Each structure stands twice: as structure tokens, then as C-alpha cells.
């Protein structure tokens, strides 16, 4: 099970590999505004997070997701469920 900093590091790696993002990624990085997630990039990004971190982000998780920190929190929650289940 990954810790929050490990999850953030993974998200940074996925942003680099999938989005070609060269900058720093922190918990405060905004998904739409900073990572410039249009619908196609958002899809690629979230699916790759699910694939690599072996989690399923649920529809209700996505409401109100604004930053990388929000996303990491959801991954942590779902990972815990996954491991428990």
C-alpha cells in the first residue's frame, strides 16, 4: 500500500509519461487549469492512474476533484478498499 507522498510521486510520473508534463506536480497543482486537461487528456490521465496504481476511481469520487491532492486522496481511499477487499 502506497503512502500519500508515494502516490503523489506516481501521479507526477504519470503526468510526465502520459501528458508530457515537464513541470513540478504538487498537491496544489490544479487538474484543469495547470495540467491543461482537456477531455482526451483527462481520460488518458485518469485511466493510466487506474492502470498503474491498480485502483478504480468511482464516479462519485470525481465530483469536486480540483487538484492533484484531491486525486491522491481518492487514490489512497480506493487503494485501501482494494487491499481490504
Amino acid at each position, binding site marked *: 500500500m502506497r503512502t500519500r507522498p508515494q502516490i503523489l510521486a506516481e501521479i507526477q510520473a504519470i503526468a510526465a509519461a*502520459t501528458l508530457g508534463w515537464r513541470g513540478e506536480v504538487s498537491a496544489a497543482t490544479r487538474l484543469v487549469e495547470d495540467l491543461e486537461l482537456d477531455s482526451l487528456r483527462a*481520460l488518458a490521465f485518469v485511466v493510466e492512474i487506474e492502470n498503474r496504481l491498480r485502483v478504480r476511481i468511482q464516479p462519485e469520487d470525481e465530483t469536486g476533484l480540483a487538484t492533484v491532492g484531491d486525486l491522491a486522496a481518492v487514490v489512497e481511499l480506493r487503494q485501501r478498499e482494494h487491499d481490504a477487499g
Partner: protein
Amino acid sequence: MPAETRMPAETRMPAETLADLLAGAAAAGSGGLRFVGRDEEATFLGWDEVRRRAERARSWLVARGVRPGDRVGTVFRTAPGFFDAFFGLLAAGAVPVPLYPPVRLGRLGEYHRRTAAMLAAAGARLLVAEPLAARLLGEVVALGRGALELAVLDGLPQPAAGSPPAAPAADDLALVQFSSGTTVEPKPVALSHRAILAQVAALNRHWRHVPGASGVSWLPLYHDMGLIGCVFPALDVAAELTLIPPELFVARPALWLRTLSRYRGMVSPAPNFAYGLCLEKIADDELEGVDLSSWRVALNGAETVSAEVMRRFNRRFAPWGLEPRALTPVYGLSEASLAVTFSDLDRPFTSERFDAEALATSGRALPAPGGTELVSVGRPLPGFAVEIRDAAGAALPAAHAGRVWVRGPSLMSGYLGLPDATREVLVDGWLDTGDTGFLYAEELYLTGRAKDVLILRGRNHPPEEVERALDGLAGVRTGCAAAVSYRPPEAASDALLVFVESRPAPGLGPAALAAACRRRILAATGLAADRVLVLAPGTLPRTSSGKIRRREALRRFLDGELDPPRRVGWWRLLWAMIRSRRALARAGE
């Protein structure tokens, strides 16, 4: 694909409906659907199993009040559930209206509004969805104001006693698909069984001579190219089709090529951007053991085809056995069920260079070395015809650009419930495609759209959607924005360019304003503007009634004529940027 897997002619009734096709494929005992998952594991359903499942879904749907002729929205990802609902509805004599599943990471408001508008336009009172999607569809039902009900299809329903399957006629409505880009006013394209079967027959006749292999598709099933172009042709000849969920392709494009190799895929279509995405994303080590030599028909359609992307794709993947003749530019539109023209399958794609000035000013297509390179999308499929007409509707000779009109056996019956819109485009058996182009050496070359529409990644978007997003933004004159899409030289895909006229806003320079516009557009529409160009008030060309002329703005921009007036300060800086296209290319980033 295999004429030899068809049932012998004497035991087979001629198929008149999609249900007949499924019955024929189930009886043939060959082929089916393979679903690839995220670890590349696959599950296979033979066509007979697809039919049995549909029968169970039918009784469930009938028990929910579905009656022949009802239009029913479906929201499913690429999984067996899509086909349970789809063929279940057909077996009940109802009309499926496949819609796309909710977007990921936000912008759900826009999704809800769009989906509700599409359902209303199709006259659907019921929406059938998979459980995961259904959790996000409550708002769509609420927007339906009591006229819409949601039914969740969770797994395969128990068989229930009920009425016998309905038997629709060839000219009955088979399915409703949306004219791509109908986000502001969704236009539901009504297709009869006869039209769809004619399209399927034309496609299979065209590639059938290629000795047997299967199809592979990552295209969404709510898209004509995915459903009518991949699923139905496989069904028609009881062949195998391997399906990859679109989101898995987008995240890892190598999965497409690996799947083609693993299952010896012969036919696999995609829009131009997908070929570009493969060039951008796939690393050699993802292609270990991959052999693309079975891929004979790599259709490229649904958006402007780029010669450069195809050349690079051929070079990049030749070492993995890709045949240069595989890439096949095609042209079609949802109003024609799908395809209208195909390039020759036995030779590499054709492109020609034409004098850009002559094309822009007189509409003449004059070959010119060093001119604009355009890709041929081929000749009409058997039974189809293409005519180029001027604005008044008179036929134009070869090598003259005009409006592209098409005729053929798979044209839509019309836009559902929109007789005026139908009359505008369907005239004496001909369809006005809204595209512009010309015939050269008997092949069709496309030059653009007659109507203002943004074509980005294979989807059409009304420019108003982008422009409206900027209303009320500090520094932007309300109603004074113009969005256009175009293909920059050497680029792999079309770019979104937005012109905005500014008004004084304290402390807001053009770069900051452009950045604010980009953010606003992205948040409202999910589209990333490649460039935002800030202009002085009154710069954009307008009609006599004051409407902004988008294509004229684009022409002036491309000709370097769209200059803001010289003023003090940052206007001068901006002017200098406009003079330098390269600087401009990064404006607003």
C-alpha cells in the same frame, strides 16, 4: 472476411433488418465479439451467445414497457452490456439511441445538458444504462422534467416469459445517431434498417476480396465508425471483431497495435488523430513481438487526413510489418450512415499538391509543386455518387471546388422530428454534406467545411460553444470572439484557434488575457485552445448584420492580414507578434 463463413444462400433468407443479421450470424456458428480488458485479458462471446443474451435483455426491456418504435437511449462503455441493451432493444422492435458515457474528471454539467438535449431531440422516454454510468445520470433524468425514466441494466437479466420478438420492416427506423457536433442543437440522424444494411453490404463488398481475418476496433460504440463501420460488417459475415475500450487506447495506444497483432486483425479504422497519437506515444519496447502484416485495411477518416501523419506512421511502423498500402483514407458522414468514398485498397494513399492561391480565390484545383498538399479520399463506393456544386446548386466540372453533395443507398431518412432541417440538406435524393472539396482524376479531395464548425479529434463542435464560454470574462468584449479550427502546416492534427477582441481591463496584458481565455474555454468545453489571439476592438471581420465571419477571420489570419491597430504599449508588442507567426504559435501558452 470471409464470404466462406456465410451460410449457404439456399438456407438463408435475405437479411432485411439488423435483427436478421444477428440471427444469420448466430446460425452461421462462426465469429463473435472479443472484449479486451486493461491487462489485455480477453473474453469472447460468439454471435449465438450475443443473440441469446439479447433475448434475455429483450424480455427485461419489454417488462419495463419498451414497445416497438420507442426510441431508447443507451449509455454503456465498451462491454457486453452495450450489446445486451442494443440488440435487446432491436429484438423488441425499439430504436436504440447510443449515447456516450459520462466524461472523466469533471465537466459533468456540460455532459448532463448535452445528453438531456440529445434524448429530448430523439424523443426518448427511457434511458438504459450500466450501473457505473447510471450513478452519474440522475441529473440527466432531472433535466428531462418527468419525461424521462432511467433503467439500470445490471448484468444479464433473468429470462422472463413474454411476447415474441418484434419483426420490424426494412424501412422502419433502426437506430438514431447524432450528427457529429450537434452539441448546441442536437440533430438526430434517423437511419432505416435498409440504409444501414446497404452501407454494411457496400463495406463488405469493398474489402471482402481480402482473404479472411478479423476486425479490431477501439472506436466508441456510440460513434458511426465504431458501430456501423466495425460491428455490423463483422456481424454480416459472421466474422470476429475484437473490441478495445476507447479509454484504454487513449491511455496506451500501443494496445491497439498489440491487439491487431495478437488477433491478426485485418480491418481497423480510426480518425487521423489516432495515428498521430501512436506516433507520439508508442515506444519500441511496447511492440515486442508485434507483427502488423495482417492489417490490410487501416481506414483513416472522420476528420481531415494528413499526408504527413500517414507517411510518418508508415515509416515508424514498417519495421513491425505494416504494409504501406494498408493506410486508406476514406470519407463519410453520419447522415450517410457512414462511408461514401474509399481510396483504393491495393495502393498506398494518394496526395497531390495544389496552388493554394488559386484554390482560395477562384476555387480552381491546379496542381502546383510546392503548393498545399491534399490527400485523396478516393472514389464513391459502388452505388454511391459524389457531385460538386456551387452555392446556387449548379454542378461544377472537375477540378473546381464547391459544395460536396452525395447520393447513395445508405442516406438517412432525415433528421428525426426536424422536417425543416431535413429539407435543407436532403434534396431530390441528394445529401448536402456541408463539406467543400473538388474532384481531381475522379477522386475526391476535401478542402474544408461550408458551415462554420470546429473539427477536433474526429468530433465536430459548434464554434458558439467556445465563444460563449468567454462571455463575461474581464477584458473580453462580449460576443466578440471567433473560434475556428485549421490544420497548421506540418501539424499532425487540427488546431483550435480563438480570436478575441479585448476591452480595457486594468492590469490585464494580452498574454494574461489569452491565458485566462484558455482556462475559461477548457473549463467550459473541455477543449484546449492551441492559440488565443487577442485583437483590438473592431478588428474581426463582420457581415453587414454584424455577425462575425469566422472563416474570413481565419483566411486573414493565415494571410497575415489580421493586424490590430497600432497603439501604444502592448498593442505594439502584439502587432510584432502577429508579424511573426512563430511567436504567435506560442501566444497564450
